[in-house]
């Protein structure tokens, strides 16, 4: 039982990281119905920037991660303005090419500038051998609990921004109906730019948190990105809360449920953690087959 509780927390904290990246994907999808395949690359680069600020320049780690995320927000807003805005979002191919191009370039630059070997990365929370609380024999480590806390703060923050600020209102208007928003004078370009920056900031923070558990390398966000795709699909690609809950569900399936099935259900001994990617893929397939709008997404009516 204590082991199960411990794995639950592990699963929840993994899920929280998927959730944060999934929220970043959802923010961009909501406004433009595009999927940003460069999200993983941006998050990866943000983590490297955090590494530069915190480890090499000696700033406090939390400041480093936030600075890294802020740098990526600026980069993403530049990318949106220069590379994405000239294209009609209804035409998917150019934007897919561009986001993959950016992902390639970011990975190449990171591997060139920061090296190809794995780098360890500290956690912003106490992560020593004794930094944990014990509940019913289960060791709940602070570094794990901290990630869940960050997720909650981030989601609260995005709701505050979207519901209480002017630009948030504009963003909601643009995502609900771009044409009408334009007609009433919302500057759609600037609003989408803000959306990209916000999404990249989320990705950057997630990158800084994930790096502690996986180590830094130019491809460390790839796997996370796939899980986040699954999370966003499960929750509904246009629902921020859905993305969070989807992320948590996937984290729980991956960490506590999968080992239990492996250990207690006969015939499933082949389930290993490497298989999680396959599970994520099958989950996306299943969701699209059964409930394409996801758990919390709005069902889009297509006039066909």
């Amino acid at each position, binding site marked *: 039982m204590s082991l199960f509780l411990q794995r639950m927390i592990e699963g929840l904290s993994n899920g929280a990281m998927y959730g944060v990246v999934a929220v970043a994907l959802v923010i961009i999808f909501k406004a433009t119905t595009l999927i940003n395949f460069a999200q993983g690359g941006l998050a990866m680069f943000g983590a490297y920037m955090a590494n530069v600020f915190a480890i090499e320049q000696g700033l406090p780690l939390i400041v480093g991660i936030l600075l890294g995320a802020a740098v990526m927000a600026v980069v993403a807003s530049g990318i949106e303005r220069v590379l994405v805005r000239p*294209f009609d979002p209804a035409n998917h191919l150019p934007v897919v090419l*561009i986001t993959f191009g950016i992902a390639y370039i970011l990975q190449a630059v990171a591997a060139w500038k920061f090296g190809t070997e794995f780098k360890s990365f500290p956690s912003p929370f106490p992560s020593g051998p004794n930094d944990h609380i014990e509940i019913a024999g289960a060791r709940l480590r602070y570094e794990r609990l901290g990630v869940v806390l960050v997720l909650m703060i981030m989601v609260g923050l995005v709701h505050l921004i979207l519901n209480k600020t002017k630009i948030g209102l504009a963003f909601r208007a643009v995502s609900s109906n771009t044409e009408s928003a334009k007609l009433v004078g919302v500057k759609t370009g600037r609003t989408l730019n803000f959306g990209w920056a916000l999404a990249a900031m989320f990705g950057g923070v997630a990158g800084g948190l994930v790096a502690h558990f996986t180590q830094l390398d130019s491809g460390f966000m*790839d796997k996370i990105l796939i899980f986040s795709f*699954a999370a966003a699909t499960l929750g509904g690609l246009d629902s921020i809360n859905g993305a969070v809950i989807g992320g948590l569900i996937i984290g729980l399936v991956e960490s506590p449920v999968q080992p239990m099935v492996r250990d207690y259900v006969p015939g499933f001994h082949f389930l*290993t953690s490497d298989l999680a990617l396959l599970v994520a*893929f099958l989950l996306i*397939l299943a969701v699209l087959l059964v409930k394409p709008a996801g758990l919390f997404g709005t069902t889009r009516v297509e006039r066909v």
Partner: protein
Amino acid sequence: MIKLQRPWILGLGAASLVALGLSIIHLLNKEKAGFWPFLAILAIAGLAGATLTAQRAGEPVLIVNEGSRAHRTWQTAGWGIFAFFVVATPYLLDSFRVQQVNKSMYFAVAVLGVNLIIGYSGLISLGHGAFMGVGAFLSVILVEDYGFKLWQTLFVIIPLAFVIGLIVGIPALRIKGLYLALVTFALSYAFPTLLKIEGIDKRTGGDLGRNISLDKQVQPGRLKGLLGLNGLDAPAQEQIYKYWLMALVTGISFLLVRNIIKSRAGRAVIAIKENQIGAAVSGVPLTTYKVITFGISAVFASVGGWLYALLFSEANPNTFGPLLAISLLLALVLGGVYTLQGALVGSLLYVFLDDLRTRVTLTSVAGWRPSFFQIAEGSPLTQAVLGLVLILIAFFAPGGVVFIARKVRASLIRVIPTIPTADVVASAAVDSPMSEPEVATTH
């Protein structure tokens, strides 16, 4: 009718084309670049100059009627030059370059499949690397463990790839939007891990992959003398023999795709891309056509994988991951989406570009050493070139190289199409999905 004005422009264009071809062949065969890169640049400038002059004149240099004698002569000459290159390529280049051409051929067949989806159906797939993997692994496993001959494995691969394509396609293709891209991208990541599962890895070889053992590999057979292989060294013999096998399969694939596109179903699929609602109203069952097209495109990708196994006699799970899928996309857009030639041109360009980026450093191009640009050979930064190419294509050449070539040709030569006669119009109307009687009655 034939009308030729200012023949020097056409001459300049033709001379530039010849110079470009010659310099490419020389650059491929020689390690030392010499003046050939400059000739290539000069040739491109010549082509651009001819195009611009013709465009400023506002009228093409050469105007012919479609189907006229002059037009047919030009066309025959064009096909003749193409046939000459097909036959001569393996004998002009050394065996390493022939292997690269072979590589472009298995790539081209897979890109044909991707083109069916991205170009002709307007959907985005990032999972065709996995379908190639299905073809490559099935051929290696069937040959090694079940005693198949390599050509016999096609009878298993083709139906199976079709079914897998349907399974992946059905959930995603019912909904509009980027969902297919999402599903297939996840597939690209999941596929290598699937092959490494305990149990399955006994067949696939896990991280190390599998080889076809030497005695079962494709060896130059009885046709040696006919193909002019006697007297060549072993690698050249092997590569040229494989060149001919692969060229045969590639040629058949191109013919098949051309016929699919021109068929009733092909035109229906294009109609879906152009206007989904209009196609549905005209009685095209959207999901059925999209899913079947996806299945067919998966088949072509798997045949590309089969050619991969033929060429390299091995298969490794890590080869068929997301990078391959994006390379296929890159090759497709380099050549030109929505064109048949694009698949071949783009694959050739991609394979040679990819080789160049790993072998050539910026400093070695002209001996000029700008310190800012010094990049060591094989540096990870060279991967950025591929990303840069993706972005540049999206901005400046959305139709790829084939589109640019067509623009150049259109500004130099205009072919006046013949007006279809009454019988042709009538038979086309009966054939089109819009006038199907059962569609008209069911609603």
